[in-house]
């Protein structure tokens, strides 16, 4: 697509994520897993993992890719392997 080339260039030149939605190449099932874990709140999950509620919200919405450690911690809270919680959207 011609637009994607221009987009990649602007991303490199500016040096920060310029996507207005700031989407990461990951999707996740955290919201569903929280619901299944007794309607756990974002704040509760944040406390268990060691991040703020806002960070859990950003991860859920695909706006922030967590570090490997936090990703493993989240998966550990739900007792699931990492790939059942996070999915990488290959280009």
């Amino acid at each position: 697509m011609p637009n994607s080339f221009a987009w990649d260039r602007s991303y490199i030149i500016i040096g920060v994520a310029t996507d207005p939605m700031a989407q990461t190449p990951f999707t996740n099932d955290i919201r569903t897993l929280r619901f299944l874990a007794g309607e756990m709140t974002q704040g509760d999950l944040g406390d268990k993992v060691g991040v703020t509620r806002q960070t859990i919200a950003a991860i859920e919405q695909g706006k922030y890719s967590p570090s490997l450690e936090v990703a493993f911690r989240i998966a550990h809270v739900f007792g699931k392997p990492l790939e059942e919680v996070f999915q990488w959207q290959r280009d």
Partner: protein
Amino acid sequence: MSFREKIHWIALVGLLSAFGWYFLNYPWEIANSPKGMYTAVWMLLPVTIIFLVPMIAGAAFFAIRSPKEADLKEDEREKGIHLRGTHLAYYPLAIGVQLNIFVLINGFNYGYAVTILIATLVIAELIRVGSQLYYYRRGY
């Protein structure tokens, strides 16, 4: 909105109020004299008060309202936001220092030099705080 984001908003308003007052009230007609320099330095006293009082009061108010959040350490996303903002603020800081060298070489001294240094710091801080608020609002 997180505790740190609220503190950033207070800092932004404080910066604009305090240094807005400074730049609007600085006597530019005496800027290139020793008196202009001392005036600039003395004006930093009310500027500090205008900036710090709402900052301390706001931080205390929000810390009392949500003590749990106030005690939390920065997590990895917040550290990333912090670093990005600091990185962006480096550029105006570097440009401001070069501008200051340029004006000193060209005979603008005293109050001009102090004021340009202050403006450099203020612009860098506004970019740091503003960009961090942008990233907080956007998610990262």
